[in-house]
Every structure is written in C-alpha cells, then in structure tokens.
C-alpha cells in the first residue's frame, strides 16, 4: 500500500501514514484536489499556516509508462486564490514512486523565523538548517546542495522570489543534468513553499524500476503499443524532437494568434527570428542540444539545451510560451535576450509567462517601449534585486497592470494567458475562462484540433470540455500532456484503458478512465466555489470581447451562458 508523508513545519516532525484505500485512484492533480478538499478550508489565506503544499507523482509514476515522470505540486494559490495544481518535469516523481510515496504534504509554519532544507530518503525526513543557503537563487543553490548532500539528488527549490513571497514565485525542479530548469511555475506555489520556510526539498539516492502490476503482461503489451503510437504521431514523434515547442511560433503566427505587443495583434513580422527553426540553426553552430529529455521516462525529448554565443550553457526547458510572451508580445526580436530572460526567471524562481506579461504591462503603460530588450532585462533585474517596482513585477501581471493603471490586462482569475490569442483559438479561450486554474493553456488547448476553425464560435465549448477532461486525466496519471497528442485517434485511448487495467486490476473502460478527470474537475470547482468564486469569474478580460483581433477578424464571442455549460457535470 502506498504512503503519504506528512511534514509538519511547526513541530518539525514527519509522519509516514498509509494512504487510505479511497485515494488509490487519485494521483497528481486529482490527489491534490482530494486532499485540499478534505483538509484545507477554501477560504483560508494562501500564505497562512492552514494552507498546505502538496507534492505528488501521478498514478503511472510507478510504471514504465512513457513520459510518466511528471510531478504535480498544489495548494491554494497565492496568485489566483483558486485551487492550484502546477506540474513539472525533472527527476523527483520517480524517486517518490520508488519510496512508494503517493504524496507529500507540507503543513503549518515554523514558530520562529527559521528556514529548512528537507532531506528525504528511505530512512525518513531530516530537517536541515537552511541558513547557509538563504539568499541564493536556484542555480547556485542546486550546486551548493549537491556539494553538501551528494550529486545523486533531486531538488525542488525556491529562489529569492519564493523567499520574498512574490505571488508569481515558482518551484524549480532539477533535470537529469542537475539544472533547476524545470518549473512548477504557475500560481505562485513558490511563495506558498516560502511561507512554510522551506528553501528546498531534496530526495536522495532512491531508484527503482521493478514496479508492481495487477497484470504485468497486459500492462506491458499495451504500453508497447502506446509508445509506438506516440512515436508514430507527426507532432510527438517528429516535430517536437526536432524543434521543441518553439516550432509553434511560425504556426501560431500564420494562424494569426501569436500574441504581439500585449495581445494587440496576432501576427508579427519578426516571428522567424524567435522561431524553433531559428533556435535549431543557432544551436547547431553553438553545440546546444535540440533533443533533450525533461524527466525520467520521457520518450518524446522536446526539451533542449540552449547555449550562448560562446557555446556555454545558458538555459534549458526554453518553451514556446516563454518565447512568445517575452518575444512577440513584448516585441523582443533577439532570441538570446529571450533565453537570458528565461534563465533569469528560472534562477530567481518566477513563472516566465506571468513575468513576461508583467513586463508587457510596463510597455503598455509606456514606461518602456515595446521592443526595448535592454529595458526588459533591466526590469527583470529589478525583480532579482527586490526594488519596489521589482517586487510589484514579482507579484505578476495583474498586480503590475493594476499598479500602473493598465486597462488591457491579459489575465483570468489573476493568471496570465499563454502565447495563444483566444480570439482566434476560441476553444482555448473557453479553457482560459473556465479552467479552475485560471488562464492555463495546459488545461485544454484546442490548437491540435483542425476540423473546427479556432475562429469559429460553434463547437468550442464541447471541444474545451473534452480537452479539459482529458488533460485532467493526464495530470492524474502523471503523464506529459504531449504523450496524449496521439489520442486524437481514439484507438490509442484504448491502450491507456488497458494499461490502467494492467496496473490496477478490475474492469476498466473509457468512461471509467475519463471519470478520473471528471471527478477531479468537480472537486476543483467545488473548492473554488467555497473560496468565493462564481460563474462571473469565468470570463476573459473585457478587451477580448470588445476589440477585434485584426489578423483573425473576430472578437471572443462565446456567451456567458455557453461558458457556464463547459464544466457542468450535473449539479457540480
């Protein structure tokens, strides 16, 4: 039976308890929703002692399923004040699975202003004083932790942003090279970890790959077929390994939905300069790597190592969202500057998307011009230094926009949109509006749907609903959502059903599998309702309804009534 590790920061005691049988089919995002629902008052202060930080691998973490090493982190969000799950690559999920851990729950606050590094292995939890590491950002911190605790460790850490309680703080996870380049970025969970005075959570030494299955042969044969399907798909088998997610730059630009100058245009004349093709060309000369894995068990390899002009490591996990929002949306053409901003955000420990949109707020307000790369770097540096403006920027897009009196703030429930303009991709617009997470492209992105035009109003609510259920399932399984792209062919979903049967035993069909996604969404919506959110919060910002996006010649015109139907599961 799996265990849950409760770590109380007030008493500095850890208890390992058997996970209740009723939690067996809640993993990752679903387990977070279940625990928060049972144990945390939805009205609580996100940075108060009653909130909990929960870290969970997915239901398939203890299997050989492809791309099954994603780690979910959650709690009540300091940024959105909704329920929050944010997931990341890295190496921690498989180590937790090897310890038979279903989840880890950080509770309460230390009574004194005393910070800790939590060191976890099969002998238990050690509360190490974090004093020697305070004030460090994530890259230096991970190096120092390896010097002090050994090289074979997995780290989840916060930089200065989390120490200072920036509402846009991330939790950074180390990748297979030890770089803290993978992020549970969204929703300010780094501030939640900082409120508990935990500088880093470190898992040591544990590795295992002989997992238990109800029916091993059934699991493995379906698993082989599923891996084959992922690799046969043109996007997950060919496009992503060649160009990474940045291949989307030219695609969204052609579709007219690449956010440009704070979502005022959908096409940018300099898109090629920041494209995946451009990055691949540069990295071929600089000895970078375009085909890199972000977590153990990944078969797609869409991450990369981005080297600077001198051929030295600059950053990795450099994604389309970061590139679009710092690039076209801030008007920055120089891909090296965007890569430096990515590195700065990972190091400081802030979400790149909300940080980029916060900087575009300064551009919209006229503090600096769109396209001012040097100005953007200086503003980002202020977040590191902790100046007054830097601290406002560190609180994300909404805080910055409001502070500067900006009218066009591209957020939903306080979280910035990703690099897809929802006016030309209305299915994703519905997801931005209705996801319990706030504007979140990973909650159900309709860009892969090519039978319905993204500019067309009809069918988008149903599309978003189906995608949100499927993505929530993947977030429960702990699978990368790119491992689900091949499920556009329903025959491949059947392999996943058989894998669930092989892992857990019993009778499985598609409804039971998708029910995992539905039950999680219902819990999340209930939590938000108890936190005071209503249907009226499920809206895009006003300018998306009133301003025509010229490149697609339409506004966001899905009615409030239709939005309210999206995640209506009968009485939820």
């Amino acid at each position: 039976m799996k265990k849950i590790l409760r770590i109380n920061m007030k008493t500095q005691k850890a208890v390992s308890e058997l996970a209740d049988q009723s939690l067996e089919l809640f993993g990752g995002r679903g387990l977070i929703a279940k625990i928060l629902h049972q144990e945390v008052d939805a009205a609580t202060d996100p940075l108060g002692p009653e909130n909990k930080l929960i870290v969970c691998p997915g239901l398939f973490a203890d299997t050989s399923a492809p791309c099954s090493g994603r780690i979910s982190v959650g709690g009540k969000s300091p940024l959105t004040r909704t329920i929050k799950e944010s997931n990341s690559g890295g190496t921690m999920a498989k180590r937790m699975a090897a310890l038979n851990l279903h989840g880890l729950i950080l509770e309460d606050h230390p009574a004194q202003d005393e910070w800790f590094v939590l060191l976890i292995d099969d002998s238990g939890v050690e509360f190490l004083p974090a004093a020697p590491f305070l004030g460090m950002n994530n890259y230096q911190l991970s190096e120092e932790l390896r010097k002090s605790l050994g090289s074979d460790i997995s780290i989840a850490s916060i930089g200065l942003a989390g120490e200072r309680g920036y509402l846009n703080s991330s939790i950074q996870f180390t990748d297979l090279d030890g770089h803290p380049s993978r992020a549970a970025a969204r929703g300010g969970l780094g501030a939640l970890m900082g409120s508990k005075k935990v500088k880093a959570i470190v898992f040591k030494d544990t590795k295992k790959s002989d997992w238990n299955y109800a029916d091993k042969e059934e699991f493995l044969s379906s698993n082989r077929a599923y891996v084959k399907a992922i690799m046969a798909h043109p996007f997950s088998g060919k496009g992503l390994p060649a160009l990474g997610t940045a291949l989307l730059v030219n695609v969204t630009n052609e579709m007219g939905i690449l956010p440009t100058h704070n979502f005022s245009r959908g096409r940018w004349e300099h898109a090629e300069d920041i494209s995946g093709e451009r990055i691949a060309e540069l990295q071929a000369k600089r000895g970078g790597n375009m085909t890199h894995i972000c977590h153990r068990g990944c078969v797609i390899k869409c991450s990369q190592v981005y080297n600077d002009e001198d051929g030295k490591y600059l950053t990795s996990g450099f994604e389309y969202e970061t590139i679009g929002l710092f690039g076209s949306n801030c008007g920055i053409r120089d891909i090296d500057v965007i890569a430096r901003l990515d590195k700065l955000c990972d190091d400081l420990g802030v979400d790149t998307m909300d940080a980029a949109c916060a900087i575009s707020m300064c551009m919209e307000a006229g503090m600096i011009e769109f396209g001012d790369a040097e100005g953007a770097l200086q503003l980002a540096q202020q977040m590191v230094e902790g100046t007054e403006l830097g601290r406002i920027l560190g609180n994300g897009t909404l805080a910055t926009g409001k502070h500067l009196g900006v009218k066009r703030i591209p957020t939903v429930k306080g979280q910035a949109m990703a690099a897809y303009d929802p006016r030309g991709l209305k299915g994703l617009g519905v997801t931005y509006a209705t996801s319990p997470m706030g504007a979140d492209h990973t909650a159900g992105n309709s860009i892969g749907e090519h039978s319905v035009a993204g500019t067309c109003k009809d069918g988008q609510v149903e599309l978003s609903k189906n995608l949100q259920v499927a993505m929530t399932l993947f977030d429960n399984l702990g699978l990368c959502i790119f491992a689900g792209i091949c499920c556009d062919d329903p025959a491949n979903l059947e392999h996943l059903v058989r894998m669930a049967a092989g892992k857990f035993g019993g009778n499985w069909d598609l409804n039971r599998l998708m029910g995992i996604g539905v039950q999680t969404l219902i819990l999340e919506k209930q939590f938000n309702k108890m936190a005071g959110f209503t249907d009226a919060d499920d809206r895009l910002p006003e300018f998306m309804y009133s301003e025509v996006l010229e490149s697609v010649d339409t506004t966001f015109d899905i009615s409030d009534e239709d939005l309210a139907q999206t995640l209506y599961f009968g009485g939820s």
Partner: protein
Amino acid sequence: MKITVKLFATLRIGRFKQEDRDYPDGFTCQQIAEDLGIKVDELGIVLVNGHHASVDHVLSDGDALSFLALVGGG
C-alpha cells in the same frame, strides 16, 4: 493557376518555406499536398488566404495556401 504555397514546422523539412507554384485549375488543397508528398495524416490546419479551409477546398488563381503540420499545445 498560380498558388503561393507556404509550409510550416516539420513540413518544411526537405521541401521549402514558401514558393509560387503552378497547378491546373480546379485543384484542391489535398491534391497540392499529395503533389508535395505530404500525407493527409501529417497535415494539421489548412489556411487559404489566412482562413481555415478543408482539405477538399477548391483553389482559385492567386490564392495563398498554408499547410501547417499537425501540432498540439502545451
């Protein structure tokens, strides 16, 4: 008829970014894809003059045709 064909993402590999090409009148998007050796199951969104189109859309002289590879978001 003259058609400006633009290719995106992996469809460019071994082909081109953009070319003006001659096709017989009445050709559909799918026939042009086949001419370029692009399988329909590799094809994501098809745009004609910037607007979403189906693969059996019949093209007119001077149209700009964009083939986007099958993608997903994340």
